[in-house]
């Protein structure tokens, strides 16, 4: 019974995660993305990466709040979707947008702080995705946990990257930054709590 419910949740989650990607691919060929589809694809893929990152970071707080098991079981998949969208974001920018203008791409990566930060976020997510397998968890032992705490660095940097390119205002970071702050605070409070208990024992 329990197995069947969790399979259903996982399938549902995969379906929900896949839907925007399928919709976006058809929109490119149906020319349904307006006058500047490259800008729209860049925005959409970047936003999707941030949202999956926020979802993956919600798993532990949700577990603490509800005692449900399934959020933690979905966490790896949510993180991998964040990495997938971040990679699509990078591809749209490097190939569809700047394709052929390689010196300009190199210059962007080195000279424009917000693009440098974006590239760092992608490298961090790459490291996490590459070590997301069960075999890696075994091989890295206690280092695995420290390595994967890098997500607490990647997520704020991803939001900084998004805010930095806005001409005025904060864009969607208006709600994403406070949400991220709450998620990180929950972990921090739990961590302080945990270490205090440890000391008193």
């Amino acid at each position, binding site marked *: 019974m329990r197995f069947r419910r969790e399979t259903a949740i996982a399938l549902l989650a995969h379906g929900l995660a896949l839907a925007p990607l399928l919709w976006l691919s058809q929109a490119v060929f149906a020319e349904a993305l*307006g*006058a*500047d589809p*490259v*800008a729209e694809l860049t925005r959409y893929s970047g936003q999707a990466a941030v949202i999956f990152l926020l979802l993956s970071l919600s798993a532990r707080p949700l577990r603490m709040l509800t005692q449900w098991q399934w959020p933690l079981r979905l966490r790896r998949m949510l993180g991998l979707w964040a990495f997938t969208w971040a990679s699509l974001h990078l591809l749209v920018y490097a190939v569809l947008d700047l394709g*052929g203008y390689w010196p*300009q791409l190199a210059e962007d990566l080195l000279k*424009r702080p917000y693009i440098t930060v974006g590239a760092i976020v992608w490298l961090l997510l790459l490291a996490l995705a590459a070590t997301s397998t069960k075999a890696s968890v075994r091989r890295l032992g206690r280092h695995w946990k420290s390595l994967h705490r890098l997500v607490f660095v990647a997520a704020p940097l991803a939001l900084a990257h998004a805010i930095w390119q806005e001409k*005025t205002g904060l864009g969607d970071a208006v709600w994403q930054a406070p949400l991220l702050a709450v998620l990180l605070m929950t972990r921090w409070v739990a961590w302080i709590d945990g270490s205090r208990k440890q000391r008193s024992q």
Partner: protein
Amino acid sequence: MKNGLRDVLQAETPEAVYMARRRYLKWLGIATASWSLSACAEQNDAVDIAAGTHVSVDSDPFTAEDPLTRFEDATSYNNFYEFGTGKSDPRRYASQLRTTPWEIEVSGMVEQPHTFSLTELLPVEERVERVYRLRCVEAWSMVIPWIGVPLANVIARCRPTSEARFVSFESLADPNQMPGVRSSALDWPYTEALRMDEAMHPLTLLATGMYRRDLPAQNGAPIRLVVPWKYGFKSIKSIKRIRFTREQPETTWNRMQPSEYGFYANVNPEVDHPRWSQRSERRLAGDGNRAFAPRVPTLPFNGYAAQVAGLYRDMDLRTWF
């Protein structure tokens, strides 16, 4: 396939009108040819360029050879913060804009301050068609056929005194018609300005129409500036006030972020925006799938260097960006 004026107009107009326009297009390249736009009379929004008026057509550089932007794209994707900061906000909300009656207040260093009606200031018989590249500071660009009057003609009609060295423009800023004005995204009213010699240059246009129709509200109806060698934010929309001054006036984006947006704002691939490169641009034009349209290199003065570089001969363009 080259998406020229011909193809765009064909897509926009009935066959008979298209054939009439084809004859007209044959005359392109002949300086100041004339053609009756009476065929436009059936378009219910074509009030200004109505029956009997003539549009004279200048030769290159006033008519760029580049493939045109689709009418649909030029009227659905632009910045007009008075209607919101999103690129689709102008089309979504601009129908609330009332453009008739529309008067323009002329003041400052002029012989006699005066409030003009639109047709007083821009007589229909002076209206010309120009196909210009429009380069946004955000590194995308369009190619648009404008209808308008050279600003130099309009300035002559305003009769500035010899003391006037700059001319500034103010947009309408009415929160009742413009939802964006209720927010503080920018300091309202939007203000832009030109040095007098820039304003008098024959390329500088006050536009009242595009694609042979009246200017759609979202593109700055009923009257906007078009300065094709400068970044798009200089080309102020829905102008209500024109003022002549001795000192350089404050301008909206320059005041908001002086390190990123200069007073001159001449298109220059050598001077980057602090946060992004200006070396090349996404050209939103042509008739292929928009997602795979090729990027193009940005040209000094947006390709109008031969006409305007002389205006800045003794200036360091890195300092005066």
